[in-house]
């Protein structure tokens, strides 16, 4: 593929966040290879490891001991995120390594998160790819919700599908709770309605919004509906071994639409690739992956689709 340098006007980078609830579904691998493709397409890209409790993205880039980490920025050793970016062997691709060392960093204050998110937007890059940690902690959800492109990775296993759906559900709850914090009168209403055993038999977000509309007026429900409508995740099924397995993302898509009013896009699948496992075990840089690999090609497809968005 021809390498080309973009000459776009200087503006804030577009942020892609990659999450999905379950550990081991390939979020970091996908983040790394997506970033690699962006860089190969001439997009100046920064890959950030936000798995604050268990950062390991640097190992996938073949870096054993990152000289600087996000912790150096949080603890104010460096004033700018630019100072902690590490060059990688791929042109146009830089890395900000996370830190597993300091537990306090795994629980940053909300203000620290806001600061971090603001600084991501100030990076001198076209794209910022954030590799979120596993789970659905507020950290993960807040970074996910702040991104322009919200990417959910899952594998074709029941527990992974379930976790991916719960991830979307928690993102919706988090958004609702943030929205409600601005209008306290709504908080008890939302809480009662979201109780799975509530006497009003409200089972979906749509029913919840109807309930709020009837209880608190149209004006109260509208911002909530708008806020939820803005969460438009894309779903990628990873480690697929058969045609049927490609439908895993579709399940999350259908259930999220029905219960949460979330319009997600099933962006396709990435084939299971034994070579990736071998490279991760050997700590070989993933960007050296054989480009005839199906998974590599699938992720290229995903990248081009996201760019067209």
């Amino acid at each position: 593929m021809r390498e080309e340098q973009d000459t776009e006007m200087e503006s804030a980078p577009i942020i892609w966040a990659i999450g999905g609830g379950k550990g081991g579904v390939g979020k970091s691998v996908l983040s790394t290879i997506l970033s690699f493709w962006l860089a190969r397409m001439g997009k100046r890209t920064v890959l950030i490891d936000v798995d604050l409790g268990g950062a390991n993205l640097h190992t996938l880039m073949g870096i054993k001991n990152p000289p600087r980490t996000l912790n150096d920025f949080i603890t104010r050793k460096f004033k700018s995120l630019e100072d902690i970016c590490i060059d990688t062997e791929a042109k146009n691709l830089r890395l900000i390594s996370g830190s597993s060392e300091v537990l306090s960093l795994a629980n940053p204050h909300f203000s620290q998160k806001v600061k971090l998110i603001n600084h991501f937007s100030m990076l001198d890059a076209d794209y910022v790819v954030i590799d979120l940690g596993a789970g659905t902690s507020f950290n993960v959800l807040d970074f996910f919700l702040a991104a322009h492109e919200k990417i959910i990775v899952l594998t074709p296993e029941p527990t992974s599908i379930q976790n991916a759906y719960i991830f979307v559900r928690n993102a919706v709850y988090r958004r609702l709770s943030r929205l409600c914090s601005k209008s306290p009168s709504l908080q008890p209403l939302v809480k009662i309605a979201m109780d799975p055993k509530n006497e009003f038999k409200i089972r979906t977000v749509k029913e919840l919004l109807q309930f709020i509309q009837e209880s608190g007026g149209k004006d109260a429900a509208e911002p909530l509906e708008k806020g939820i409508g803005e969460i438009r995740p894309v779903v990628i099924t990873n480690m697929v071994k058969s045609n049927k397995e490609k439908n895993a993302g579709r399940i999350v898509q259908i259930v999220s639409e029905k219960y949460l009013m979330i319009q997600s896009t099933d962006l396709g699948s990435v084939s299971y690739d034994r070579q990736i496992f071998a490279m991760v075990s050997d700590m070989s840089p993933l960007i050296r992956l054989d480009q005839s690999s199906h998974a590599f090609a699938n992720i290229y497809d995903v990248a081009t689709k996201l760019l067209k968005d």
Partner: protein
Amino acid sequence: MNDRIHKRNSLVNRIIDGSVTVDSVTKFEDLLKAFPNDPGLHRIYGDLLKKENSPNAAADAYGTAAKLFIESGMTLQAIVSKLFEWQIFKPSQQEEQAFCSALHQARHIDRAVQRFFTGMTYPEMMAFITKLMLENFPAGGSVKKFGDEENTFYFVVSGALEETEYHRLETGGRIRKKSTRNLIENDFFGEIYPFGEENVSQSDIKTITRVELAKISKSNLINICRKNPNVKLLVGNLHKSRSEFVEKKVTRTVRKTARQTLPTQVNLKIFQNETGKVPLDLVGFTEDISLGGARVVLGTKYQTGHADNLTGKHVKLKISLPTVSVRLSILGTIVWSKKVYFEGKNTAVVGVQFNEMTDTDRRVLEDYHYGSAGEQNLIWSLWDSLMEK
């Protein structure tokens, strides 16, 4: 690049579920070259050719779809494709027999609907399937409403629906939802059996996705059963399996590894081992909670004592889940603890094993972890429909 693998997912599934329409025969032929063994695609191709007034080619496409559906063990879908083929060209008796024989000989997925169709002899099957009518509904459509007369039996050929059952008032009106369940391909509905009962619908049935149904009227079914007692027996079995199916669907959930890492506020009362000592009252939040226990970060108020001293102590937790208005009350034991630095101060994180909670609290906690029964059932219905080998 393996373009094929990726495109199959993003395009073919959408063509089959109706969210993408390909209206060019040439484009469809290209797709079929790439995915020659996809029965659903051949079936849609047949529909396109029929619309384009190419009956010969349409019949061929339906025939191919039927053959591939049989090979996949999808009897109902094979029958529907064959019926479309036969609508174009009336079959000979030999062709009918060959088709029925192929259905009987094919490998089957053990489902009630497969047992129903393959339990029929050739004449019984022909008597039955020639009375089937096909009907399509868009997503969000209504198939049946509470109070409608039950005079039709439906099979789900493709797509997903939701059935919401209501409690019925003596006046005929409805009150409160009783239950909801999802219906997917190869499921069936319609309370028409036993034939002597005049039923009205106790539920609303709406489509979740685009849906194709095969239906037969109660009067036609009664006529067929009168002439073919074996079919009546099979209808009875189908009715019986529906009751079992409903029960299974409602209770089925995954209870494997799910746990919640959405922080949850907790009030802890830590009981001291020494008698007469006042329990420690603390506030914290769970970082990780499952049905068996929780990892709780104590608030910064806990700054005294060594973290190890907490291990083995009994605790009472009051947990405020973000999604419910009630607080859960759980008794447990601290099984490990360690010192941490949180929000600029020293505190402890403790692992609490749950010992006692009420059944109600357990159900609330289960819903919090796994989603409601409706969410779980839909995930599993779709898993069965889209993923099961």
